[in-house]
C-alpha cells in the first residue's frame, strides 16, 4: 500500500461538516432558489394514458394565454435520448406520435411563472387513440399483448451464464427447493425534486445550465451530444442537491427541453418537478422477478443456485442506461453473496412495458439480490431444520479464501464476512434470543430475528453514474497558504466538502478549515465521473490523496531547498514545514506559497512556478467489496399484520474510514430506506396502466416513528487501493430489506411463513396467517 501522510490527523476523525452552517441557516442555494431577472418557468403537459397514439395536438389556446412565451412539441425540439450502441430505441424528449407511459412529457409550456405555465398547460388539447398497454413481464417476454415499440422486441436485454460443472452438480445434490421472489416498483424520492435551469451567459454567449444531478460532466457531455453543441459552449453548475440516491444520475427529457428553450428564447428558463411529477417520472426501480431453484445438502451446504431474473425496464431505456439491465446483470454476478456456493446458472430477460422507465435507486441490484440470497439461506435452514446462523457459518467464505472468485466469476478482495456476522449476533444477544422467542410465543407475541450478511461491490471502474473509472482533482495552494481543490464529483448530501478536505489537509499539512473543496462546476472542476455506485469515497478520495501527496512532495522540495536540508528531513503539519528534530528551522506554508508565486527566483531549478496541479486516480482493481451484517429484531402483530422494528444492529466494514460520523449517517439513512423498502414503499399500477401512488400519502416513506434506534460497529479490512478506502453509500440499503423480511419470516415460523416479496404489507401478513 502507498504511504500516507506521516501523521493522519483528520482521516478517521469525527470531523464536523463544513457544509452545515449554510444549510442550517437557510443560506444554501438549491436549484429552485436559482432566480435571475426575467426568468421563465416551464410546466409540462403529460400523457394521461399508458399507451396511445397521438392523433393531434391543439396548442392554440395555450399559445394565446397571457404570459405564455412558448409552447413546445416534439416537432419543435426533435431530440431523442437514445444510446444507440446499447439499445434499439430511445425516448423522444417530448412524445412523438405515441405515448408509452403515464406521465410521459408531451408538450412544454414556457411562461412568465409557474402559475401561468400550469394554467396554460390545462388549455392544451391532445387527441389520443388509446392502445392496449403492456403491463405484465411474463406476457411482455412473449411479445403479448403487443410490442411496446413496433420495431423492437419487448425483450431488450438477454443473457445466460452457467458455471462449468453446474449441470452435473445441480441434480446430484441431496435436496432441492424452489421459490419466486418478487420486488415491487420503488423509487428514490429525494426530498428535493428534480429540476433544471438554463440561461445564456450574456458575457460569453455560452449556455449555463444549473442541474440537480450527480454527474456534472456527464450531463454536460449528454447535452452537447444531444443538442449538437461543442462541449465548451456549455457550463454545468450543480447547486446544492437535496438527495440523489441514483435517481439523479440520469439525463432526463425535461433537462433537454429546458436547455433547448433557453437557447431558442435567449432567456433564462427553469423547471422544477412537483411531487406528482416526481413519482410519475423520476426513474423507478426494483421491478424484478427471480425464479429460483436451489440445490443443497443435508447439513445446509448450498451447492448450486439456478435463477431466472426478469426486470421490467419500463417504456424506454432510461438515458444513458437502463436500470433493468443494471439490476439484473449485477445481481446475477453477486447473487452468491458472502457464501461459497460453487455453481450458479442465471438467465436474464429485461423487457419493455408501458410504465415509467427503470433507472437506479441506491443499491440498484443489491437490495434485490441480498433479499433473494438471504431468503435462500433461510429457506435452506428451515428445510434442514438448522439455525439460520449455523447454515450461514457452514456456507460462509473463510478469511483464508481471499481473494475469492465466486461462482459467477466476480473476485472479492478481503473482507470480514464471518467476523461481521458473529459481532452482529453478539450485539443483538442472539445466544439467548431463541429462549426469549419461545417464551414470548407462549404469550402470543411473535418476535423474530432476521440476519443479512451482505457484500457491496464499490469503487467500480465504471459505475452507472460515471462513464469513467477514475476521478480527478485540481489542487492549488493559494499564495496565502490556504488550499483550494476542485473535484468532478456530484455530492448530494454525503459531505464531500468535509471528507475530501480531511484527506487533503493531512497530506498538505494544513488544518481542515484551511481547505476549500469545489465541486459541481464544469468550468472549475477537472473531468470526472461524478457520484454514484459508492465510488466517491474510494475513487474521489483516492484522487484527493494522490493530489495531496503530489502537492506535499512539491512543498517538501521547496522547503528543503529554502531551509537547506534534505527532502527526507522535511516534515509538514499545522501549516508549517520544518526540519525534523530542529523545530526552529521552519517556514510556514504561507511563506512557501508566497515564494512559489511571487519570489520565483528562489524556487529550486526544475520546479514549476506556483503550487497548482491536477492528479487523477483509477484503482488498479476493477471493484472493491465492502461487507457487513445487519440483524433486525421485530414483532409482528398477528391480529393486524403490523410489524414493529424493535432492535437493529449493523456491523459494517468499508475499509479505512474517512469520517465515522458521516459513515454512520449513511448507515442509518440506508437502514431507514430499507424499512421503507421492506414494509412501506410501493409504486402500484392498476390493471389499466395508471400509476395509483402519485402522492406521499399513497407512496409512504418511513417517518421518525417507523425507525428504531440502531446500533453500529465498524470493522476495518482495508482495500488495496489508495488509503485502504472502500465505498459504503449503498451497503446499508443492500443489507437492510433482507434482514427485515427474514425477521418477519422468523417471527411467523409457526405459521410456515417465508416472505417472498418486497415490500411485505400488513395485508400480506394477515392473508398468510389466515391461510
Amino acid at each position, binding site marked *: 500500500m502507498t504511504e500516507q501522510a506521516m501523521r493522519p490527523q483528520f482521516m478517521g476523525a469525527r470531523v464536523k461538516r463544513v457544509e452545515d452552517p449554510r444549510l442550517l441557516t437557510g443560506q444554501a*442555494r438549491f436549484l429552485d432558489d436559482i432566480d435571475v431577472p426575467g426568468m421563465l418557468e416551464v410546466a409540462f403537459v403529460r400523457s394521461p394514458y399508458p399507451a396511445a397514439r397521438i392523433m393531434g395536438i391543439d396548442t392554440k389556446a395555450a399559445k394565446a394565454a397571457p404570459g405564455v412565451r412558448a409552447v413546445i412539441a416534439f416537432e419543435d425540439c426533435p431530440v431523442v435520448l437514445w444510446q444507440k450502441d446499447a439499445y434499439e430505441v430511445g425516448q423522444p424528449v417530448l412524445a412523438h406520435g405515441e405515448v408509452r407511459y403515464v406521465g410521459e412529457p408531451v408538450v412544454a409550456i414556457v411562461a412568465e411563472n409557474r402559475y401561468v405555465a400550469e394554467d396554460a398547460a390545462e388549455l392544451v388539447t391532445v387527441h389520443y387513440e388509446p392502445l392496449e398497454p403492456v403491463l405484465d413481464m411474463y406476457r411482455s417476454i412473449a411479445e403479448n399483448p403487443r410490442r411496446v415499440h413496433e420495431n423492437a422486441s419487448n425483450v431488450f436485454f438477454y443473457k445466460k451464464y452457467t458455471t462449468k460443472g453446474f449441470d452435473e452438480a445441480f441434480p446430484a445434490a441431496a435436496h432441492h427447493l424452489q421459490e419466486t421472489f418478487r420486488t415491487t416498483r420503488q423509487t428514490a424520492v429525494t426530498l428535493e425534486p428534480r429540476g433544471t435551469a438554463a440561461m445564456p451567459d450574456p458575457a460569453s454567449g455560452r449556455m449555463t445550465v444549473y442541474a440537480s444531478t450527480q454527474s456534472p460532466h456527464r450531463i454536460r457531455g449528454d447535452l452537447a451530444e444531444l443538442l449538437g453543441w461543442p462541449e465548451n459552449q456549455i457550463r454545468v453548475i450543480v447547486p446544492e442537491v437535496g438527495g440523489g440516491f441514483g435517481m439523479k444520475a440520469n439525463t432526463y427529457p425535461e433537462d433537454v427541453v429546458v436547455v433547448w428553450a433557453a437557447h431558442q428564447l435567449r432567456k433564462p428558463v427553469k423547471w422544477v418537478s412537483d411531487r406528482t411529477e416526481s413519482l410519475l417520472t423520476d426513474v423507478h426501480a426494483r421491478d424484478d422477478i427471480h425464479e429460483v431453484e436451489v440445490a443443497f445438502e443435508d447439513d445446509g451446504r448450498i451447492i448450486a443456485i439456478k435463477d431466472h431474473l426478469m426486470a421490467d425496464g419500463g417504456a424506454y431505456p432510461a438515458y444513458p442506461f437502463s436500470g433493468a439491465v443494471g439490476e439484473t446483470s449485477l445481481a446475477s454476478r453477486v447473487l452468491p453473496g458472502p457464501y461459497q456456493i460453487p455453481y450458479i446458472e442465471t438467465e436474464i430477460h429485461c423487457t419493455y412495458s408501458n410504465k415509467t422507465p427503470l433507472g437506479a435507486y441506491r443499491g440498484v441490484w443489491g437490495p434485490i439480490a441480498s433479499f433473494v440470497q438471504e431468503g435462500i439461506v433461510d429457506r435452506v435452514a428451515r428445510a434442514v431444520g438448522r439455525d439460520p446462523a449455523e447454515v450461514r457459518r457452514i456456507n460462509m467464505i473463510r478469511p483464508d479464501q481471499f481473494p475469492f472468485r465466486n461462482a459467477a466469476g466476480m473476485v472479492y478482495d478481503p473482507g470480514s464476512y464471518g467476523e461481521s456476522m458473529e459481532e452482529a449476533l453478539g450485539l443483538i444477544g442472539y445466544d439467548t434470543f431463541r429462549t426469549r422467542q419461545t417464551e414470548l410465543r407462549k404469550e402470543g407475541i411473535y418476535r423474530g430475528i432476521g440476519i443479512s450478511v451482505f457484500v457491496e461491490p464499490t469503487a467500480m471502474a465504471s459505475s452507472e453514474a460515471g462513464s469513467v473509472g477514475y476521478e480527478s482533482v485540481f489542487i492549488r495552494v493559494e499564495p496565502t497558504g490556504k488550499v483550494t481543490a476542485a473535484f468532478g464529483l456530484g455530492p448530494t448530501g454525503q459531505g464531500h466538502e468535509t471528507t475530501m478536505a480531511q484527506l487533503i489537509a493531512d497530506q498538505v499539512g494544513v488544518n481542515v478549515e484551511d481547505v476549500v473543496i469545489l465541486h459541481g462546476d464544469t468550468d472549475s472542476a477537472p473531468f470526472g465521473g461524478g457520484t454514484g455506485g459508492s465510488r466517491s469515497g474510494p475513487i474521489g478520495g483516492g484522487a484527493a490523496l494522490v493530489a495531496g501527496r503530489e502537492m506535499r512532495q512539491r512543498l517538501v522540495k521547496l522547503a528543503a531547498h529554502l531551509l537547506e536540508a534534505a527532502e527526507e528531513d522535511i516534515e509538514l503539519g499545522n501549516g508549517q514545514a520544518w526540519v525534523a528534530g530542529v523545530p526552529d528551522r521552519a517556514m510556514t506554508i504561507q511563506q512557501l506559497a508566497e515564494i512559489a508565486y511571487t519570489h520565483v527566483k528562489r524556487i529550486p531549478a526544475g520546479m514549476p512556478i506556483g503550487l497548482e496541479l491536477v492528479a487523477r486516480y483509477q484503482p488498479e482493481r476493477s471493484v472493491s467489496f465492502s461487507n457487513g451484517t445487519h440483524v433486525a429484531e421485530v414483532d409482528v402483530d398477528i391480529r393486524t399484520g403490523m410489524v414493529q422494528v424493535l432492535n437493529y444492529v449493523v456491523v459494517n466494514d468499508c475499509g479505512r474510514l474517512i469520517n465515522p460520523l458521516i459513515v454512520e449517517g449513511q448507515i442509518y439513512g440506508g437502514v431507514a430506506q430499507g424499512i421503507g423498502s421492506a414494509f412501506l414503499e410501493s409504486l402500484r399500477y392498476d390493471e389499466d396502466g395508471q400509476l395509483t401512488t402519485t402522492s406521499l400519502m399513497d407512496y409512504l416513506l418511513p417517518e421518525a416513528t417507523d425507525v428504531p434506534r440502531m446500533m453500529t460497529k465498524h470493522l476495518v479490512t482495508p482495500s488495496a487501493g489508495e488509503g485502504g478506502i472502500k465505498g459504503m453509500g449503498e451497503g446499508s440499503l443492500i443489507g437492510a430489506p433482507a434482514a427485515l423480511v427474514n425477521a418477519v419470516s422468523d417471527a411467523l415460523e409457526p405459521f410456515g411463513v417465508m416472505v417472498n416479496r418486497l415490500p411485505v404489507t400488513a395485508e400480506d401478513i394477515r392473508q398468510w396467517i389466515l391461510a
Partner: protein
Amino acid sequence: MEITCEVNGQPVTVEVEPHWLLADVLRNQLGLTGLHLGCEYGVCGACTVLMDGEPVRSCLSFASQVAGHQITTVEGLAVDGKLNRVQTAFINHHALQCGFCTPGFLVTGTYLLQQGKLLNREEIREALSGNLCRCTGYQQIVDAVEEAVNQQSANAVECE
C-alpha cells in the same frame, strides 16, 4: 391585495394575489428561500414555519391568511448571528445530510425547545413524525433534538 405581518421580527408589507401560497410569497417576494417545497400538500414538512410560535405548513397556507401575524422562518432562528441550540446540536450530531428537509426539522425542533418540557426519545420521534427526511434515518436528528431540548429544560429547572 396588500398584507402586513411580522417576519423574523421585522414588520413587512407585501402585495400579494389572494391565491398565492405563503411558501411562495416567503420564497419569491421576500427572498426567504430557506424553507423548501418537497410535496406542496403538507406531508413532508420541509416548508414548516412558525406562525405566532406554532408550526404551520407554509405550502398549505395562503399568504393572505398571515396578515397581522408573526412568522418565523429558518432564517430567523439564529439569535444575534449565533446559531440556536437546535442548530448547534444538528452540527454536533451530524443530523443533516443533503439539508433540504433540515429547515423544517429546525423549525419544529425550535418549537419543541420553546415549549420548555423534558421529552423522551419516543415523544421526540412522535413530535418529529410530521417531517420527512430521506437521508439520515432520523437517528442523529433525534439525538440532536434530544440534546437541545433536554439541555434547555435542565437549565430551566436549575434556574428555578
